[in-house]
């Protein structure tokens, strides 16, 4: 059995509000029918199913939500969003939760996933298009297992499925400036919320 949740103290209404605001979704609309969870192709691997994540957001239980592996397991397939009878874009909420978890440093539950996502993003940012051999190598190094899947990589090479050199794209400069802008926006948003938390807790 879990510990008792003293709602009057532990319910972080600002967390609920932040998720609602940043995702643009009304989490209070969720009436816990469970359709999202029952149709989720990844639910088997999640520690907390999507419907319950919505419930925990409603109750303002921030740690439970951000620590869960659910937000990283989510494949963003949008099945839940498509089917939700209350028009909650659950997959979008998962996006928001991932951003918030990164900001708050909650990345332990799925380190590999988090690392893979970060490397992927970094790769695109730098090159404009993913260069797979480099991505694999960097990820392996970051996770401290440089030779994982090395044999398979060679096989792919042999059949011409992995490029030798990275491809160049047009307009890399423009892409970078978009990237910078998004990052800046995120930073501002993140700081605003961190500040909000601090003022409310002081």
């Amino acid at each position, binding site marked *: *059995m*879990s*510990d*008792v*949740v*003293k*709602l*009057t*103290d532990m*319910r972080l209404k600002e967390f609920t509000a932040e998720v609602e605001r940043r995702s643009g979704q*009304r989490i*209070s*609309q969720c*009436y*816990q029918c469970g359709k999202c969870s029952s149709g989720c192709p990844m639910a088997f691997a999640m520690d907390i199913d999507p419907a*319950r994540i919505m*419930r*925990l957001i*409603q*109750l303002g*239980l921030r740690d439970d939500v951000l620590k869960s592996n659910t937000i990283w397991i989510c494949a963003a397939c949008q099945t839940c969003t498509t089917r939700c009878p209350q028009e909650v874009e659950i997959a979008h909420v998962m996006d928001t939760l991932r951003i918030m978890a990164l900001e708050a440093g909650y990345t332990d539950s799925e380190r590999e996933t988090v690392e893979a996502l970060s490397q992927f993003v970094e790769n695109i940012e730098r090159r404009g298009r993913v260069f797979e051999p480099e991505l694999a190598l960097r990820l392996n190094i970051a996770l401290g297992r440089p030779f994982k899947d090395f044999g398979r990589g060679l096989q792919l090479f042999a059949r011409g499925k992995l490029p030798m050199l990275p491809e160049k794209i047009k307009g890399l400069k423009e892409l970078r400036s978009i990237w910078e802008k998004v990052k800046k926006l995120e930073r501002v948003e993140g700081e605003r919320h961190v500040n909000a938390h601090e003022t409310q807790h002081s």
Partner: protein
Amino acid sequence: MPRIGVFVCHCGVNIAATVDVERVKDELAKHPGVVYSTDYRYVCSDPGQKLIQDAIREHNLTGVVVAACSPCMHEATFRTACASVGLNPYLCEMANIREHCSWVHQDKEAATRKAIELTRIMVEKVKRNQELYPIYIDVTKRALVIGGGIAGIQAALDIADGGYDVVLVEREPSIGGHMAQLSETFPTLDCSQCILTPKMVQVRQHQKIKLYTYSVVEDVRGYIGNFEVTIRKKARSVREDLCTGCGLCMQRCPARRDGIPSEFDRGLGTRPAIYTPFPQAVPNVPVIDREHCRYFTEGKCRVCERVCPVKAIDYEQQDEFVTERVGAIIVATGYELISPSLYGEYGSGRFKDVIDGLQFERLLSASGPTGGKVLRPSDGKEAKVVVFIACVGSRDRAKGIPYCSKICCMYIAKHALLFKHRVHDGESYVFYMDIRAGGKGYDEFVRRAIEEEGACYIRGRVSRIYESNGKLIVKGMDTLSGKLIEVEADIVVLATAMRPSDGFEELARKLRIPYDEYGFFSEAHPKLRPVETTTAGVFLAGACQAPKDIPESVAQASAAASKVLGIFGAPRIEREPTIAVVNETTCTGCFDCERVCPYNAVERKEIRDRRGNLIKVVSSVNPGLCEGCGACVAACRNKSVDLRGFSDEQIFAQLSAIAI
């Protein structure tokens, strides 16, 4: 010689699949007295009825037996069909080979034999049936409505608007009922008093309505169309004919300082000893609460008498009895809430800040003891966190109340919403098991409370409430997240179960109407006769029948009123002639029948000779009251009572038909 026609119905496959209807037809054709026997797919259809009518004409039938469904379904259909071609309807009977046979058996051979036997039995009865003619009764075209809540008010107004006189009896000093106590009403948030008080005023002003408040129904005699009702007008100690409702007496009453708990405010406010329950009371005439009045308890005071400018105070007033003759009665006695003391674990009675739904209504009400501010009853501080607990007593088999009280889901949502309107930074938590919001605009209303007004709904029953540092700690569980939950509340509102008003047993006895195991009055049929009782001329409206909200109560009240108007609209009432009759020659006057009759239908009749000398006193059955139950027939020691249409001779003939 009897000439009986038999019509065996297939009822599609309902009967034909389990009973060999053709064999039933053939076997019955051989039965003595049967001159015509046939089968048909649906005898109740138009062509089916025509079949019967043609056979009556062609074969000159003296009796008809339809072997089909239950007589509850189609007896009237077939009897009317027979009557239309000149056969007395009471010479037509139904043998039930569906509910009593095909539906409950699987073995076709055995079921067929049983169907043959059931039909034969009925043929034997019909052979001995006599022509009967309906009884007609004159009607007193005035109605009695018992209970002056919203249901009673609506019923009274509808009947009165229909042009008939109404007597409305209310036991409290004012009409209005529980609706007058409510702050706002779901799902539209109309101010309850604002929509109710115009109707109350209409009642008072209506030429056709005679209003008795602070009065109870003492006795009911008679039967449909002809009831005689005795009403006890409790001593008000204030003369209604003189009082102007100035209110001076209430202002000056010294008991005001002692603070007598106000019933209307459910103990959250106080009132003087001479009082009206609320400012818009109808009639606006106070009563003296003799239990708390100084003059009545200590023998001195008489302040109200001194200040009354019109000398309306009358300490000597006694209860008064009046008799009213009416033709129909509507019971609208409403509901009460169960005592929360049933729940020790919720600390009710011990913790002042644990209150019930109606008390919270009074806190929310602008005319309530706090002027609409949500203040804790214990220390008068504004509540910031309110917990609502649904299903307190309802749906709790262990507490003996397995039914759903139906209105709580909605009023809790309303409470949570209104609390947010009153206390903007307040938080409300609702512990619930299911949200039952079936009704026009109801679910949308609950969603509004949750989505827009931020009510935090937690699915689970609260296990216990205890006090800590002046706060109420509510322990429950959220089964949706699987978390154990604790909330620190300022006020806890228990949505306690609805139960029938006090005194339902006594009233049921007076009216001879049945009630269920919880005391709610029983309707004659749960689907098809929802506003009638099994006693002719007595109808139900509102929460005295089952938990109901305002729209439903009003709808039922109007339905009951239309039933009454239906009776009043007809020149006379037609009643079934299947009633008991006494053979006055053999009756010895033991009056056992009188004792067993549940409808008080047996009267004593004096038999005199030509010179007027009393020979004997015998029983006589009042045809207006008799419901034909047959209890008197069974009780009579020398077979002096018989039931028309069910005579001993007929029953014995049926029994011997089984032996064939």
